[in-house]
């Protein structure tokens, strides 16, 4: 018996030995390798002028560009890395949005709104690193994979009638980009759960603990975004470093019963809030796997200007003394927790005052002493967020079910006025506006009917449109895409683009289940490429390590206005 058993033991020993070797090799690679898989979690809270609160969760995971780990990952979600490797995705962004970003009161010219205000429903764009003729196949596979990953109907974007190939509306594009939206997708917790599953701590620890479903979905706006970039390292291009950025932006109404009771007459009283009152939960320490875990409170420069900090004049010097009492205990508000650091915006060309950022390290807190930041307003305060250069809205003109027109109207905001006065020296001041509009094939757009109205006067199209690219829709084959570059004079008050269309008639089985509800037309994306919504905070070591703030600094994104509009279409249905 003993003799018989021996070989087994030997085998077992060899196995464990191999395993140990592997383990050691793995560990040593990690130790010596300067690039490790990293994860960081951050939350940014920002009071909004209309008594609401913006909470922006930012989770970033990165995988180093190396083969040393094979296809194993410590923190990085395996599903995502497999997806990137399989479909050779260079860059991809998927967003699920419910509600509309209110550009007028929530601002449109700061890094958060410019990259996180998304069109309602599902939006997906991806840049592929494959030969041209394989892109469509890759896109189809990608949509199906994402559909499975996120429990959403992204697979409807597979059909050629739903996605488009923008020529120059997307900066990274070089013909390899595909863009698709599915505006009528209902976004709910079933999409959030798979999204959270990509986080190493899920929502069991760290900042993600705050993601309480009932309070999230009670909000006014809710956008959950997944952005990934893969950078090629080796010449073969097989291995790639992947940076996965998961953000969740919510606009919530703080529970302001007390404020209403007290100052019912006063309109400008901001509601006091705390994280526990908004989300109903507290942060009990960081996610242990996270490299950094911090919460920021951002006070807009508009708000800061209203608050009149006592030593506003020498604000910059005060920022160096980070624990300066003046910045966090103020006659107008009170923070329940002392901030660990305070940052002032480095420079701002556009405004008189600078934004202030309070940073709270979550590491310090624990189960026994949970982190819960609160802000209590003492005096009424009213301010305005910084607007986009032009406020855009889209209308549907005409009545009936035969034809109509789309009008995109641009109205100048106070920002444009400031911009105009700043640039009034040179007479040839021009404002560049890019319009990107996709319409489904059953909206049969007559591109020759494009009209431009500047200051309510019909003008020649060639005077204001610098560049135009259209790809007309093919019945049941491809959507219509219009990309227009408008060059408007800075003094413009209003500008409008109108374009006529006929409503196509569908076959009986092409109608959605509730046809009388109408069809959603994908949002128009209006961007101002000459404006960079960046927010640079004072140079600091810790700042460089924060992915969220570095995102702010290197924000090359232009402001994007998205508008959704529903078109009602009659069914050519017979009442049989």
């Amino acid at each position, binding site marked *: 018996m003993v003799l018989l058993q021996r070989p087994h033991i030997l085998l077992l020993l060899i196995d464990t030995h191999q395993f140990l070797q592997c383990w050691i090799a793995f560990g040593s690679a990690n130790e010596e390798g300067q690039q490790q898989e990293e994860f960081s979690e951050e939350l940014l809270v920002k009071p909004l002028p209309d008594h609401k609160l913006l909470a922006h969760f930012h989770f970033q995971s990165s995988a180093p560009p190396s083969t040393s780990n094979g296809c194993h990952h410590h923190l990085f979600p395996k599903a995502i890395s497999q997806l990137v490797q399989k479909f050779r995705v260079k860059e991809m962004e998927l967003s699920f949005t419910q509600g509309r970003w209110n550009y007028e009161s929530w601002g449109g010219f700061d890094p958060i709104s410019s990259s996180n205000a998304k069109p309602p429903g599902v939006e997906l764009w991806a840049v592929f690193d494959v030969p041209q003729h394989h892109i469509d196949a890759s896109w189809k596979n990608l949509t199906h994979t994402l559909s499975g990953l996120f429990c959403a109907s992204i697979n409807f974007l597979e059909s050629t009638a739903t996605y488009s190939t923008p020529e120059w509306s997307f900066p990274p594009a070089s013909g390899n980009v595909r863009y698709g939206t599915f505006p009528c997708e209902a976004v709910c917790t079933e999409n959030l759960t798979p999204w959270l599953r990509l986080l190493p701590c899920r929502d069991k620890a760290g900042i993600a603990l705050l993601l309480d479903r009932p309070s999230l979905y009670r909000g006014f706006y809710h956008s959950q975004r997944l952005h990934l970039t893969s950078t090629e390292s080796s010449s073969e291009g097989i291995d790639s470093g992947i940076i996965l950025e998961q953000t969740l932006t919510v606009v919530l109404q703080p529970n302001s019963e007390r404020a209403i009771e007290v100052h019912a007459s006063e309109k400008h009283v901001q509601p006091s809030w705390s994280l526990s009152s908004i989300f109903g939960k507290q942060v009990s320490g960081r996610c242990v796997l996270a490299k950094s875990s911090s919460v920021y409170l951002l006070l807009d420069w508009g708000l800061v200007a209203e608050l009149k900090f006592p030593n506003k004049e020498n604000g910059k010097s005060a920022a160096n003394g980070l624990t300066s009492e003046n910045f966090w205990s103020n006659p107008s508000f009170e923070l329940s927790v002392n901030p660990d650091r305070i940052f002032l915006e480095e420079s701002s060309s556009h405004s008189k005052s600078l934004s202030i950022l309070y940073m709270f390290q979550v590491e310090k807190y624990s189960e026994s002493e949970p982190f819960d930041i609160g802000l209590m307003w003492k005096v009424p305060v009213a301010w305005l967020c910084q607007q986009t250069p032009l406020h855009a809205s889209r209308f549907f003109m005409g009545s*009936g079910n035969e034809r109509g027109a789309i009008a995109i109207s641009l109205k100048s905001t106070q920002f444009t006025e400031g911009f105009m006065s700043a640039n009034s020296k040179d007479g040839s001041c021009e404002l560049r506006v890019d319009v990107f509009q996709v319409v489904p094939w059953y909206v049969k757009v*007559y591109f020759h009917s494009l009209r431009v109205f500047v200051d309510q006067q019909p003008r020649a199209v060639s005077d204001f449109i610098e560049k135009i690219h*259209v790809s*007309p*829709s*093919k019945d049941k084959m491809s959507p219509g895409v219009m990309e227009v570059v408008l060059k408007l004079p800075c003094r413009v008050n209003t500008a409008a683009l109108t374009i006529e269309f006929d409503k196509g*008639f569908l*076959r009986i089985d092409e109608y959605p289940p509730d046809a009388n509800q109408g069809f959603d037309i994908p949002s128009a994306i209006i961007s101002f490429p000459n404006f960079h919504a960046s927010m640079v905070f004072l140079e600091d070591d810790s700042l460089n390590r924060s992915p969220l703030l570095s995102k702010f600094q290197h924000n090359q994104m232009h402001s994007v206005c998205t508008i959704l509009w529903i078109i009602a279409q009659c069914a*050519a249905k*017979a009442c049989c």
Partner: protein
Amino acid sequence: MEKVKKKIGSFSFWNWVTASIIFRLILIYFPKNLNLSSRPEVSTPLTSFRRLAEGYWLKQSFMSPYAGSMYHGSPLLLSLLGPLTINRIEGQPNHLLYSLVSVIADVVSAMLIRATGQNLRLAYLRSLESLDLVKQIEVSEFLFSGDIAALIYLCNPFTIVACVGLSTSPIENMAVILCLYGACSRLIPLAAFGWVIATHLSLYPAILIIPVIFLLGCGPDSPPRKLFLQRHQQKEVLNQSKLPPRFSWGPVIHFAFWAFLWSVYVLVLCGISLKQFGGLWEMFKSTYGFILTVEDLSPNIGVLWYFFAEVFEFFRNFFLIVFHVNILFMILPLAIRLRHRPCYLAFVYVAICSMLKSYPSVGDSALYLGLLGWFVNELADMQFSLFLFCGYVGVSLLSPVMHNLWIWRGTGNANFYFATAMVYACLQIVLVVEGVSAMLNHDRKLRNLITGKPQDAKS
């Protein structure tokens, strides 16, 4: 009768022509062409002016005019009429030049109809003479069918609406009429040109090759050849000169040669104008292909849109074949029965096409109603003519109302509009059936006159 005859005097004819032209010009000066250009009855995906303008715009922006599913017409039309879609004269209504082209096309068509009608009338009189029936049928009461047909064509509200509504059907109709005129007046190159252009523009006139061959082979409409033979057997003198000529292949071969030449010419022109785009294959796919595979389901006065909006996908091809073969099935029996009356055969074919084509418009009805005017003398005994007239009036009044109820007010549904489309289709069927039977009855009447006359003499 005499009053009518006087009215249709030469002087009165020109008055009517001028009046109809002036009426068109007045309508053109209404703002936005009375929105006629977007009526589904007037502009189909094939004849729509806006789609033509879109195609021209795409071509000007260095894109294929067939990119997207907007334009489905001919590239030649784009080169000829396209510039007129954007040219504007200060102080004049938009698209004035284009409207003027439509008006000219209508007038030219009317003149060609008139010339052909006179031709047909002469031929008819000649054949009556050779049958010695001049006394029995009071030739003095014969109407000038050419004038009547031309006036019907010019004053028909359908024609006016199609002309003012900026559709391309006046041009297509002109090509068809040019073909028939050329064949009647034995201008073979002209006939071939008309046939090739008409086929190129709207495909369906291709079947007019059968009446054209008969026209060229045996000459214009006449009573059946066997009547002449019977007549001469009775007289027992065979006067060859009075017999209608036998079928001669010479002009037909001549026609085929010219048709080939013209089609090569047209294809080369199309190829040149589409050289940097998709080429001829793309053109065929988005013109003929679009016609044959009823892709656009927007409502029109036909019946196919409704049917194909409802039919299951896997039956679609089957029914496409059924509907198109329907036209082809009718060609042969009608050709055999009416071979001695090629112009009437052409009328019947045009009517059938406008009934069964995938995107019919009132412009097509205008054409066959105009052609019907040629046969006022033969069809004098036609039944249901009042019923048909009232039906046409009723449908053309009800159809816009139903369309409004359905599309604009949303108080009706598709069935409201489709009901008028069905009534319209039925009216056209009745018209064709009654027309054909009236023509056959007319031939029968002639035969009775020939065979009955000796009996009368005996008794």
